[in-house]
C-alpha cells in the first residue's frame, strides 16, 4: 500500500505546461528518487505535495484517503515535511528556533515554550554530532553559519517535524562527505521507522546509494517507476531522454564545421578570447576552460549548479575567491562590471527586470549606457545616438515605435532585445549569455540565436548558459556540463546529444 499516491496531476502557468500527467506512488519505508531534466516538472510535482502549488487537476491520496493540499500549513497538518532547496531560514534567529519554526512548542497557546524548544532542538542537533563543524550550537544565529551548516539546519528543520512523509529537494548540495554519510545514516533509520521519503539529487552516486525506487519525469509526464537495484544509470537516463533524440532542425541551424574548428586543441593560442584557470567563487570551484573566438560555448547541467555564478563572476558582478582569467599574457582582474565592460566583456541576464531594463526610461536611454562607458562620452546627443543604436536594434528585428518611447511599452521579448542590443553598439569580444531567453516568445528566441551565430561567425566569443537543453544542443559548439559547482564533462562534436547531456548532468565527481 502506498503511503502517498498522486495521479493525473496537471499544472499550467499561462501557456507553459509544467505538468501534464504527473503520477507518483511512494511506499512507507522507501526512499523514492525523482529524476528529470530541467523543466521536466519534478519541482512542480514536489511543490504540489508541499502545498505551495495547487494543481489544476489530479488526485492526491495519503493512506488511500483522498486529500486536498490547499497550502503549506495543510501539508504540514497532513504529515508532510519539506526540505526546501532555496534556503528558507530566518537569518537572525538561532539554530534552535529555526529548527522548531514550523511548529513552535507553546505554553497555554501563546508563549513559546523555551524549554521544550531547546529540548527538541538539542535532540535533532545531536543527530549530526561531530560532523556539523565549529560554531554549530543551538544558540548560534543562522547568519553566523557557513553554507553547509545552514543546509544542515534546513535538514534538521525537516527532520524535527517528525512527519511521516518527507521531501528532500537537493539536500546535500553544500554538504561535505562526512555530513552526507551521516545524513544518509539518518535516512536509513527513518526508513526503518517506516517513513516515506521523496529524494531529489543531481548526483547519481547518491541516488544509487540511498534510493529504493526511481520515478522519471519527462515533459511534465511520469514515464515510469523502477526499482533502483533492478535498473542501471544508462536505462534511467534513456528514459529521461525519451525517443526524441534531437530537436527538429537543431542541427540544421549549425554551420558545417571546417577542419580547423574540429577541436580546441587544434586552435592557435591567439584564438583564445578568455582563458579561465581554477576559478572559484560563490557556489563553484576549480572552473577551468578556454573560450575561443568564433565559438559558442555552452554551459549545461541541471539548474543552479554554478553556471550562472561563473558568468556573473567573469563579469565582475560576483566576487572571485580563486583562480585567474587571462587574455593572451594579460591577467584580467574583473572586479566590477565596469572593469569587465572596459575589457570587452558583455553580459546578458535572463532576469531582465532585475539586471537589464531601466524601467520608465526611454528606449534610447536603455540602449546607450554601455556606449557611454566604452566611448567615455560626456554629452548625449539624441540624433547621433539614435543613428548608432539603429543598427544594433535592427540586427535583432526589434519592433518599437520610437526611441523616445518608454521601454515599458514593449513586449517582454522586445525589451530583452533592447537590453541585448545595448551591447552591440560597440562590439564586445566576449558575450556571456546567462539564460537569456527566459520568459520571451519563440520568435524573439529565433532572432536571438540567429544573431549570436552571426556574431560568432564574425569572431566574437560567446558563452551560452541555457536552462533549456534543446537551446544548448541546437546552438552550442561545445558544452561544458556543470554539476555541484564543477565542470564534470565537456561534450563536443557528435557527443552533443541529449543522452550525454543528462548523463553528465547527473554524473558524480
Amino acid at each position, binding site marked *: 500500500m502506498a503511503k502517498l499516491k498522486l495521479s493525473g496531476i496537471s499544472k499550467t502557468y499561462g501557456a507553459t505546461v509544467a505538468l501534464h500527467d504527473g503520477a507518483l506512488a511512494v511506499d512507507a519505508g522507501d526512499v523514492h528518487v525523482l529524476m528529470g531534466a530541467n523543466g521536466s516538472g519534478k519541482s512542480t510535482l514536489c511543490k504540489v505535495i508541499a502545498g505551495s502549488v495547487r494543481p489544476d487537476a489530479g488526485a492526491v491520496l495519503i493512506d488511500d484517503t483522498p486529500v486536498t493540499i490547499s497550502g503549506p500549513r495543510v501539508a504540514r497538518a497532513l504529515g508532510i515535511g519539506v526540505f526546501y532547496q532555496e534556503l528558507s531560514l530566518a537569518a537572525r534567529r538561532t539554530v534552535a528556533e529555526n529548527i522548531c519554526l514550523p511548529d513552535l512548542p507553546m505554553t497555554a497557546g501563546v508563549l513559546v515554550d523555551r524549554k521544550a524548544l531547546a529540548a527538541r532542538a538539542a535532540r535533532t542537533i545531536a543527530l549530526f554530532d561531530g560532523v556539523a563543524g565549529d560554531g554549530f550550537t543551538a544558540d548560534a544565529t543562522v547568519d553566523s553559519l557557513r553554507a553547509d551548516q545552514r543546509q544542515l539546519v534546513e535538514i534538521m528543520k525537516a527532520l524535527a517535524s517528525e512527519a511521516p512523509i518527507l521531501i528532500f529537494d537537493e539536500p546535500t548540495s553544500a554538504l561535505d562527505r562526512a555530513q552526507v554519510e551521516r545524513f544518509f545514516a539518518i535516512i536509513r533509520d527513518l526508513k526503518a521507522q517506516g517513513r516515506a521519503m521523496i529524494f531529489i539529487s543531481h548526483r547519481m552516486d547518491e541516488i544509487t546509494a540511498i534510493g529504493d525506487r526511481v520515478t522519471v519525469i519527462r515533459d511534465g509526464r511520469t514515464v515510469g517507476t523502477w526499482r533502483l537495484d533492478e535498473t542501471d544509470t544508462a536505462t534511467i537516463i534513456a528514459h529521461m531522454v525519451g525517443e526524441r533524440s534531437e530537436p527538429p532542425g537543431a542541427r540544421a541551424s549549425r554551420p558545417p564545421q571546417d577542419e580547423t574548428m574540429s577541436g580546441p586543441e587544434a586552435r592557435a593560442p591567439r584564438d583564445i578570447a578568455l582563458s579561465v584557470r581554477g576559478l572559484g567563487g560563490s557556489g563553484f570551484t576549480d572552473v577551468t576552460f578556454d573560450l575561443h573566438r568564433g565559438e559558442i560555448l555552452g554551459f549545461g547541467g541541471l539548474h543552479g549548479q554554478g553556471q550562472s555564478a561563473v558568468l556573473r563572476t567573469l563579469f565582475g*558582478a560576483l566576487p572571485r575567491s580563486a583562480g585567474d582569467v587571462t587574455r593572451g599574457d594579460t591577467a584580467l582582474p574583473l572586479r566590477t562590471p565596469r572593469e569587465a565592460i572596459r575589457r570587452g566583456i558583455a553580459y546578458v541576464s535572463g532576469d531582465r527586470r532585475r*539586471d537589464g531594463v531601466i524601467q520608465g*526610461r526611454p528606449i534610447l*536611454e536603455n540602449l546607450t*549606457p554601455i556606449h557611454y562607458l566604452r566611448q567615455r*562620452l560626456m554629452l548625449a546627443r539624441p540624433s547621433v545616438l539614435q543613428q548608432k543604436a539603429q543598427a544594433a536594434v535592427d540586427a535583432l528585428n526589434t519592433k518599437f515605435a520610437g526611441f523616445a518611447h518608454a521601454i515599458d511599452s514593449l513586449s517582454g521579448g522586445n525589451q530583452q532585445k533592447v537590453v541585448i542590443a545595448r551591447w552591440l553598439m560597440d562590439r564586445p569580444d566576449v558575450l556571456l549569455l546567462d539564460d537569456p531567453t527566459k520568459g520571451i516568445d519563440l520568435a524573439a528566441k529565433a532572432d536571438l540565436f540567429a544573431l549570436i551565430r552571426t556574431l560568432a561567425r564574425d569572431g566574437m566569443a560567446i558563452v551560452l548558459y541555457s536552462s533549456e537543453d534543446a537551446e544548448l544542443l541546437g546552438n552550442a559548439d561545445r558544452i561544458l556540463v556543470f554539476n555541484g559547482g564543477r565542470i564534470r564533462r565537456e561534450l563536443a562534436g557528435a557527443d552533443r546529444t541529449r543522452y550525454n547531456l543528462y548523463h553528465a548532468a547527473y554524473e558524480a565527481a
Partner: protein
Amino acid sequence: MTTLAALATRPLVIALALIVLLLALGQALSPGFASAQQILRLLIVAALLGIVAAGQNLVILGGREGIDLSVGGVVSLSAIIAGNLMNGADAGIPLAVLACVLIGALFGLLNGLGVTLLRIPPLVMTLGMLGVLQGLLVVVRQGIPSGRAAPGLSSFVSQPFLLGLPGILWLWIAVGIVLALLLSRTVFGHRIYAIGANEHAATMAGVPVKAVRIALFTLSGIFAAIAGICLLGYSGSSFANVGEQYMLPSIIAVVFGGTPLSGGKGGYTGTMAGAVLLVILQSILTTLNIDESGRQMVFGATLLVLMLFYGRGRAMRA
C-alpha cells in the same frame, strides 16, 4: 480628448493650473495680491526655494530613498559665513561665494560618502548631518559677530537687473536651463535616471553608481550654499537658523513637480513650478494671518496629500 485628459494628469500642468487658481484666490482675499510688483516679490522668494529644491531634486531622482534633510542647515551656515566674510563690502563677495560653495560641497560630499561607502540610509545620514550643522551654527554665531550683506548682493537679489527682473531670477532661469540640459542631454543626467529607476541594472550596465550618487549629494550641498548666499542678500543680515524653513518645502516642491520620492523619473521644470506654487500658498496663509506653526502644519499636510496622489508608484515597486 484623450490627449487633453493625459495632459490634465501631468504634474506640471496640475501645478501651473493651481498657481493660477491660488493667485486668483489671493487676489480675491486681498486685492493687490496678484499685482505685478507682488508677483515679482513672490518669484524672488520662490527662486530661493527653487535653488535649494534643485539639489533636493537631483538627490531624490537618484533613487534608493534619496533625500537631503541637511539642506536647511547648509543654507543657514552659508548665510552666516557669507555675511561675515563680506560684512557689508562688495569686495568680499568673490571670497564669500567661493568659501560658501566649498563648504556646501564639503557637507554634501560627506553626505554622499556616508550614504554610499558607509551605506547609511540617506534619511538618517542627512538628518545626522543637519544635527551637526545646527551645533556648528551655535558655535559660529557665538564666536563671531553677525555679518551684513554687501550692497551688490542685495541689489542682485531685489533690484531689477535685466528686462526688469532681478539677477536672482536670471540665476534661477539659468539653473533651470542647465538642469534641463544636464538631465536630458548629458551622460551624467542619463546615469542619474538609470540609478534611480533600476540601480541593479545600472550597475550591470557599467554605471558608476556610487560616484554618481556622491556627486548628487555634493551638488545638493552646493545649491543649498548658493541659496544661503542669496538669502543673505534678500534679508540683509544673517540670523539664527534662517535656512530651517527650507527643508520640508524643498521636498514638497520636488514632489509637487512630479518627481516621486522613489526617484528615477521627473525633472526640474516641474519642481520650479512647485516652488512657485508653495510660495504663493505660503503668502496666502500669511495674508490669512496664519502664523508659522500653522503654515508648517499646512505644509506637512500638503506633502502627505501629495504622497497619496503621486506616491503610489513607490509601494508598487517595493
